[in-house]
């Protein structure tokens, strides 16, 4: 155990952690610009850009029309030309409209030019279901984690929202930064000292012995709630927060599964070709056949109807059920 003094922290809302990371990086690097709808004087749809417009002005914090293809394309072009850009797409559902410049250009630029062009762009977007209907609820990060040349990060806490945003804004290539609607009401302690969270490093949120529960983004909170409940009946869950989907820190997961012998993955996105499918098979390759279960959304669109949304999106009870069935307890 370290004998260093405890890290001094300040409690921040999730949105404040993002704004703080951006402000710090924009002070350090005058080439960073922010593009998106309502990011200027309005401060962002989740108020996650509050203060930036006042400090850095309209030339660096730019409101754009609703035009994701050109928004992402411009962010990519600006970055390719030697600056840095953060492009904000309010709903992950609309990321699809900007996928061409992100996937066909940004993710391939370094490779196709043999290193003459690099694209340090961050595309930030908010995923998740919260009563807003079939085209404003999706979690499609699994679609992007397999794009060579593209990093994908998924913070679940204000500290990681802050630390991963700083890392993303210093990365050499394109980074997709995916946060979640249901994370914005949350708050947490964030180090007062400037702190980066490395891309590609998972975090063990709760130590446990009987099963490894792997998740990311808002679902980590569901996993921790379930683990607390399961503990009361003697089931000990180790909860791992991936924090990065590309690259994935499979080594941390494998080390855990080697101890527990059981793996449950939890995601809000779809199971087919999902994050859990990828982890489960990589673990099989690394650890041999272990008991595995995956929990994810039901294969249906997510309605704004509260009854129907609740039926589709995973919750604590579904995870508890999956753990119990896997462990036969």
């Amino acid at each position: 155990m370290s004998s260093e003094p405890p890290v001094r922290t300040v409690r921040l809302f999730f949105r404040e952690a993002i704004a703080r990371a951006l402000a710090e990086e924009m002070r350090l690097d005058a080439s960073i610009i922010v593009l998106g709808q309502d990011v200027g004087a309005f401060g962002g749809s989740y108020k996650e850009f509050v203060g930036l417009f006042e400090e850095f002005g309209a030339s660096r914090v730019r409101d754009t029309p609703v035009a994701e293809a050109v928004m992402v394309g411009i962010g990519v072009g600006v970055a390719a030309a030697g600056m840095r850009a953060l492009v904000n797409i309010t709903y992950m559902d609309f990321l699809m409209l900007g996928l061409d410049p992100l996937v066909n250009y940004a993710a391939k630029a370094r490779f196709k030019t043999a290193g003459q062009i690099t694209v340090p762009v961050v595309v930030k977007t908010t995923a998740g279901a919260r009563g807003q209907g079939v085209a404003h609820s999706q979690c499609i990060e699994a679609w992007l984690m397999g794009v060579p040349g593209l990093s994908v990060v998924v913070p679940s806490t204000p500290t990681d929202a802050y630390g991963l945003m700083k890392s993303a804004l210093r990365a050499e290539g394109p980074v997709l930064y995916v946060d979640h609607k249901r994370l914005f009401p949350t708050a947490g302690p964030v180090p007062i000292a400037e702190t980066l969270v490395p891309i590609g490093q998972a975090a063990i949120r709760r130590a446990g012995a009987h099963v490894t529960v792997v998740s990311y983004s808002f679902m980590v909170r569901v996993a921790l709630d379930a683990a607390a409940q399961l503990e009361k009946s003697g089931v000990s869950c180790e909860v791992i927060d991936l924090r990065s989907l590309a690259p994935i820190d499979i080594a941390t997961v494998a080390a855990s599964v080697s101890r527990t012998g059981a793996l449950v993955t939890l995601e809000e996105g779809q199971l087919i070709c999902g994050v859990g499918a990828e982890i489960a098979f990589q673990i099989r390759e690394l650890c041999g056949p272990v008991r595995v279960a995956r929990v994810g959304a039901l294969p249906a669109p997510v309605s704004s109807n509260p009854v129907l949304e609740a039926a589709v999106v995973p919750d604590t009870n579904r995870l508890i059920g999956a753990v119990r069935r896997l462990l036969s307890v």
Partner: protein
Amino acid sequence: MIYSLVVPSDMGDVEEVRVLEWHGEAGDAFAAGDLIVELETHKALVEVRAGQPGMLRRILCPVGGWMAVGQPLATLSDRPDEPLPDGTRAQTQLLVEFRIS
């Protein structure tokens, strides 16, 4: 009677708030409609006004402090001389009006 001023709970998806500013201190009297405290949520500012007259007796959460929805922020009473109970929670909640901006 002793009252608890609690963080309003019908504010949508708000889970916790940060106290932004107290508009009075222990010993101050508030009339119905007076602004008592300003709170910050993850997306808005909330003005909490007295829904009944009362005297502020004890602030439980200072400026910059955090409190979950439904939890007590301060203790008030009808009269200045009523003895305060131990602990932070009074049985009766102070009537308040709140405005989100």
